[in-house]
């Protein structure tokens, strides 16, 4: 289902490719391939993330690519990489498959919180950009690091909202706002978005897109919640474009600061 909006919004543009849906879907943790396909279709997601794993030699499982509708852009994540070198190796494997060269860099050397290693991410971004990959780095919202990522050639910057799978929403809200203000490439809020309202919140404050995985895959009705997420993302975007009025402070009758300007 594609979200039709009549607004004057320019499309999301990443590496020269345009997308009208700002909701990105992760494909991990789905109970069945059918639920995955239905979720992609119901939400109209145009970019989905996938991972690379050793094939299961006993089970001969079907490749997930078969279940992703044609025309959807694949974003291969480097999950499993604990440093930049490993991320590069995974990226090269992905490229060899012929399934495009869009890579979501995940350099995580932390099995407790799954927090991204910002510095490994910068290194990985430099290495992958040098080899011609379209790089979308997943990172912890730090302005210096975001600037380095842009300098290194990242196509977007993907700050986490909160810990992966935590459904805590935008714990890092104020710091994501700083990135939105200061960084000129698209900001895709990734990780921790647990409810459609949180996706809307991210978009209302000016994020360019959101990526959700666990909240959809683990839901009772993934396709339905995926649709809700997509609608919420579009609603948040529309609200942002409408420029909500600022919250005004109350005026009072005396004018101690500027009264002198109006005295005769």
């Amino acid at each position, binding site marked *: 289902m594609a979200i039709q909006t009549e607004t004057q919004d320019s499309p999301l543009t990443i590496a020269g490719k345009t997308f009208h849906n700002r909701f990105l879907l992760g494909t991990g943790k789905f109970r069945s391939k059918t639920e995955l396909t239905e979720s992609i279709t119901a939400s109209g997601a145009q970019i989905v993330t996938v991972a690379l794993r050793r094939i299961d*030699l006993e089970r001969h499982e079907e490749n997930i690519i078969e279940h992703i509708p044609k025309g959807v852009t694949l974003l291969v994540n480097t999950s499993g990489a604990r440093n930049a070198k490993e991320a590069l190796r995974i990226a090269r494997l992905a490229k060899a498959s012929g399934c495009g060269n869009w890579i979501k860099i995940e350099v995580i050397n932390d099995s407790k919180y799954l927090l991204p290693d910002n510095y490994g991410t910068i290194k990985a971004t430099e290495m992958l950009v040098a080899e011609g990959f379209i790089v979308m780095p997943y990172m912890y919202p730090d302005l210096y690091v975001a600037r380095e990522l842009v300098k290194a050639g990242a196509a977007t910057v993907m700050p986490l909202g909160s810990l992966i799978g935590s459904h805590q929403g935008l714990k890092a809200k104020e710091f994501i706002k700083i990135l939105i203000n200061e960084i000129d490439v698209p900001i895709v809020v990734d990780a921790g978005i647990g409810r459609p309202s949180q996706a809307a919140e991210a978009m209302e404050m000016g994020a360019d897109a959101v990526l959700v995985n666990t909240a959809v895959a683990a839901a009772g009705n993934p396709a339905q919640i995926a649709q809700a997420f997509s609608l919420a993302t579009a609603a948040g975007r529309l609200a942002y474009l409408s420029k909500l009025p600022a919250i005004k402070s109350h005026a009072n009758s005396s004018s101690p600061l500027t009264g002198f300007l109006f005295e005769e």
Partner: protein
Amino acid sequence: MNIILNGKLREINSAMTLRSLVEQFSKNPNHVIAEVNGNIITHDQWPSWRIQDGDTLELVNFVGGG
């Protein structure tokens, strides 16, 4: 012939090509990526690529991920 396939020791038929090996383990070899001794071997080379004794092979494909 012994090789290490996806981290485990395995005995395979000496006459195997990479193509026939992959076909043994995957319904759709086109989406499998093969790395032999740290080098990625492209699909067009598979039919003629002979596996050697002691090779380390990694066969990976796409799975769901966030």
